């Protein structure tokens, strides 16, 4: 232990000077570890060289600032670095696939993509919609209630960070099986049931207190999430585009507003950029912040007033990296430097070291740039809304970051050095999965199989969770999470954000964790298709996408290889569908001693409903209507819930023919526009049989289907036709009077497979003319509702 590497600064308390100049490589690593910098030896050497050129040793404030700025969480080293895969070098996954497809689609309605805290698309009457989805996995693993609550808090501040007023949130969470054996849990890992209850409670607590409705989401269960829970929160906001002001300049004050700064959330980003261990709870508890939704509510009100009065020239949230990221990125964005006086930052208690103040991730704080002439007016707004606000520094024309504490300089770093992040080069490989296609006998009692499937946790009703969120607050929820007298699951939420416009916003998501075990490319493709078809089903058009990659440790070539394949799918599928990505985020290092997460891509889709009066819900409307199946069915059961029920994964993962699907979706959208579609529901987990059952039991209208009507050359088994999870398929209810018009419009994409009935039963005729499923709707509904009703 070379303790003489650290010396207390002679000028100011609580600041260490680190003897970097004479440190050996071993000592460099030791310094990185001791100060929890999370920097590699190469990075430490770069830092050492920089301070040698400045002829001095760095302070701990400087090292912590560099560490935060260069962390995976803040600068996305993996997505922006180089990757060697398949004999080729990929120069930034982000640029090569995600940003590229958006650029090539070049949609005129994209107002601002990837550059700011959230993506913005144009909406109506001069308004835009801002969208952002983030994960908060590591904090939620240690403290599920607080972690999930702050997930909402953080993503809402991202929306506020583009001057938008939050109008809706989403929540996607993934857990280990709720019946997981306690004895098999690793030390430090919390039981899935505990996480399930507390993450839902955290989301509910924060969003309800803040008064923003959670309108859409998903809950998934998979063994691989046992050690690495996923808590993913989205937020959508409304902003008048002419008030989107971002023009800060040297001389503007740096104003910090909101909650006080404390020791909570120290090293949150370094925590997020490492694997979880059994010690995470003791070492990382300070990394989970306490949350105060009312503080955020007040902040939100003040921000909207300041926006409308145009008192600030820039805004950004204090999220990962705290002040260090917000100040640094603001200065960098406007080609400035900055001076900051840390003793002006309001603190929760005394004794914080300057570096702690600078990188703390205490919640409910926001950073503004305010021109000198507006400073008094801006501070008055904060005062009226009871928000503490302080000018802590100024943007400067000199490109240096100068941090003082009680007037003593504790950091003075060149901005170019700070933001010249060295691109790493990582190795990626991908080997085929060690899986085989199972040989299953067709069950004799398919009714029973369907009942079992409906009760599978991934399929079962999530209504008990959805009802703990105030999905009605703001009074704009046109299509709610559940539909019909008996609450079937809607495919997407629809909002009516503007009082004087019938235009709506459709929000949906797609996630297929099980497919990732077989093929990350088709997993990603399927998630994109699912999010889009859910959106199409309710009448959404002009769809924009948000990506959230949740992967294991990217230092391991296999994990990285699968990430590359998923990114390739993002490019290919988004290109074919002409649906640009407008925002995204990667959460890597989701790995614990219990193993990595299965590669998971959560896609959030944002569509426009031209007139909410033509919104389509999923429940059957009247008996004696016709039921059509859109899309083709293939023997694609790999990763399906049906295989899972039988204890298999399989290999035949659903693939996707996006060009054909796009034509079908286009025609369906037209049919919805013409008012021909009475109800529509997407086929996903559990396939045709599950989707049909859900439509029927949602309003207690019966349904008879005939599997022989399904066009298909390859499937000879009833169970495969019933439970295949082939993509791009939807069920559509049409009135007999519209039959010929509908069929003409849909060309060959749609097949009539059954009709709605007055008997409250689901009856399905098999390939050999026999009735293979015959069940009262109440029985199906009960099976679907009971699994998670009291979990």
């Amino acid at each position, binding site marked *: 232990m070379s303790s003489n590497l650290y010396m207390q600064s002679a000028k100011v308390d609580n600041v260490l000077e680190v003897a970097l100049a004479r440190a050996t490589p071993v000592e460099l690593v030791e310094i990185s570890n001791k100060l929890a910098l999370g920097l590699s030896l190469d990075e430490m050497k770069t830092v050492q060289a920089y301070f040698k050129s400045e002829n001095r040793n760095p302070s701990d404030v400087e090292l912590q600032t560099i560490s935060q700025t260069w962390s995976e969480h803040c600068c996305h080293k993996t997505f922006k670095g180089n990757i060697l895969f398949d004999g080729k070098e990929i120069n930034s996954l982000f640029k090569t696939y995600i940003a590229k497809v958006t650029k090539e689609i070049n949609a005129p309605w994209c107002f601002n993509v990837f550059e700011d805290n959230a993506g913005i698309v144009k909406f109506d009457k001069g308004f835009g919609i801002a969208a952002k989805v983030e994960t908060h996995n590591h904090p939620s693993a240690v403290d599920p209630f607080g972690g999930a609550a702050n997930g909402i808090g953080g993503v809402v501040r991202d929306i506020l960070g583009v001057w938008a007023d939050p109008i809706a949130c989403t929540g996607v969470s993934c857990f280990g099986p709720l019946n997981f054996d306690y004895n098999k849990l690793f030390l430090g890992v919390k039981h899935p049931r505990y996480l399930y209850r507390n993450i839902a409670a955290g989301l509910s607590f924060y969003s309800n207190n803040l*008064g923003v409705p959670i309108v859409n989401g998903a809950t998934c269960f998979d063994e691989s999430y046992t050690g690495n829970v996923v808590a993913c929160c989205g937020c959508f906001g409304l902003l008048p585009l002419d008030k989107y002001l971002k023009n800060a300049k040297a001389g503007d004050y740096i104003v910090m507003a909101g909650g006080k700064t404390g020791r909570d959330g120290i090293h949150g980003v370094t925590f997020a950029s490492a694997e979880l261990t059994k010690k995470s709870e003791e070492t990382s508890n300070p990394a989970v912040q306490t949350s105060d939704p009312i503080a955020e509510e007040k902040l939100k009100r003040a921000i909207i007033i300041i926006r409308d009065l145009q008192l600030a020239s820039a805004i950004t949230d204090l999220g990962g990296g705290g002040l260090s990221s917000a100040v640094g990125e603001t200065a960098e964005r406007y080609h400035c430097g900055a001076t900051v006086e840390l003793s002006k930052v309001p603190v929760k208690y005394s004794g914080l070291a300057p570096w702690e103040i600078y990188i703390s991730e205490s919640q409910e704080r926001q950073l503004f740039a305010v021109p000198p002439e507006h400073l008094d007016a801006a501070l008055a707004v904060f005062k009226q809304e009871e928000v503490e606000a302080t000018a802590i520094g100024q943007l400067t024309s000199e490109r240096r970051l100068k941090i003082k504490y009680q007037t003593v300089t504790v950091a003075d770093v060149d901005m170019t050095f700070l933001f010249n992040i060295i691109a790493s080069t990582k190795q990626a490989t991908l080997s085929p999965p060690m899986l085989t296609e199972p040989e299953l006998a067709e069950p004799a009692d398919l009714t029973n199989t369907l009942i079992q499937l409906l009760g599978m946790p991934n399929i079962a009703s999530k209504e008990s969770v959805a009802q703990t969120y*105030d999905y*009605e607050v703001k009074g*704009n929820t046109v299509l709610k999470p559940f539909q019909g007298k008996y609450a079937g699951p809607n495919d997407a939420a629809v909002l009516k954000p503007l009082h004087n416009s019938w235009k709506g916003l459709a929000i949906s998501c797609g996630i297929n964790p099980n497919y990732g075990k077989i093929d990350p490319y088709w997993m990603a493709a399927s998630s994109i298709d699912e999010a889009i078809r859910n959106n199409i089903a309710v009448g959404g058009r002009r769809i924009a996408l948000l990506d959230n990659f949740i992967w294991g440790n990217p230092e391991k070539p296999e994990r990285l290889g699968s990430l590359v394949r998923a990114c390739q799918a993002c490019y290919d599928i988004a290109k074919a569908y002409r649906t640009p990505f407008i925002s995204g985020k990667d959460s890597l290092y989701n790995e614990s001693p219990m193993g990595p997460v299965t590669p998971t891509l959560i896609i959030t889709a944002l569509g426009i409903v031209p007139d909410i009066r033509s919104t*389509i819900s999923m429940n059957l409307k009247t008996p004696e209507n016709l039921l059509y199946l859109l899309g083709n069915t293939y023997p694609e059961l790999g990763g399906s819930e049906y295989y899972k029920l039988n204890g298999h994964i399989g290999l035949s993962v659903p693939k996707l023919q996006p060009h054909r699907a796009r034509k079908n979706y286009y025609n369906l959208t037209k049919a919805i526009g013409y008012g021909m579609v009475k109800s529509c529901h997407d086929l996903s987990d559990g396939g045709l049989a599950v989707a049909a059952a859900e439509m029927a039991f949602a309003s207690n209208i019966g349904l008879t289907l005939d599997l022989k009507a399904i066009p298909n050359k390859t499937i000879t088994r009833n169970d495969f036709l019933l439970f295949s999870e082939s993509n791009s398929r939807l069920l559509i209810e049409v009135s007999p009077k519209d039959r010929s018009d509908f069929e003409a419009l849909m060309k060959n994409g749609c097949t009539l497979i059954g009709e709605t009935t007055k008997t409250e039963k689901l009856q399905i005729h098999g390939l050999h003319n026999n009735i293979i499923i015959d069940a009262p709707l109440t029985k199906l509904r009960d099976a679907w509702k009971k699994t998670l009703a009291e979990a």
Partner: protein
Amino acid sequence: MKTKDIKVCIIRAAGTSCDAETARAFQELGVQTEIKHINELVTNSNLLNYNLLVLPGGCTFGDHVRPGAVFAKYLNKKLGKQITQYTDENRPILGISNGFQTLIEYGLLPGFNDNNQQPEITLTTNIPNGFKCQWVYLKNENKGNCSFTNQLPKDKILKMPIAHSEGRLLLHAEKEKQLLQKLADNDMIVLRYCNRDGTPANQTYPINPNGTYHDIAGICNKEGTILGLMPHPERAMHWWQEPDWTDKTHTTPYSDGKLIFENIINNITTKQ
């Protein structure tokens, strides 16, 4: 008084969340509507300039202590005199959800005793426990005392959503029967949870969604001028807010919540 001259003040504090949609509902009816932060009212407004005060839904002050408790104390301390003067003139106040909780905490509802005494009625944690957002049916049980429902037929069934975790009306255990009698005798029971066909919920979950005593969802004061209710009429203003609108072929432009707002506006136009 003309409708367009009626002034409605929607009072907000830290944690109020339903002010905008409540204002939108009143604006739809053609009255002047202002949303005022309590700090603004304290510095430069007079409550007596308004014809209707509304405490909207939300989680004022984070529901700390008890929902509405801090806001009620704050209102009392900062605006108590004006509020007394306002209510002495029998002018109307509407409390929705957190607003209802605040009126109870303030003592304006049921208004049986002065503020120094221990309350005999409270709104407490749901049974089953926890936050619940769902649509419910309500029956107007008021016989004509309440100025927010007196133009509706008695037994009119209304559909609205609830969203709260503390909406269970609880009466002082030893005086339960007496207090209920007193509420009934003074025609203070306004809305009760019921089945779709209007038959009483009889404490059956989830028809009665929170275990509230006697299925009560909303009460008014003796004078009928102050109404508190847990359901949200402002979320049931338009047909497209209803959960089953996609099932219907014919839709009227408005929904049941409007009846309550309209009712009080009509009364103000005729009385004042």
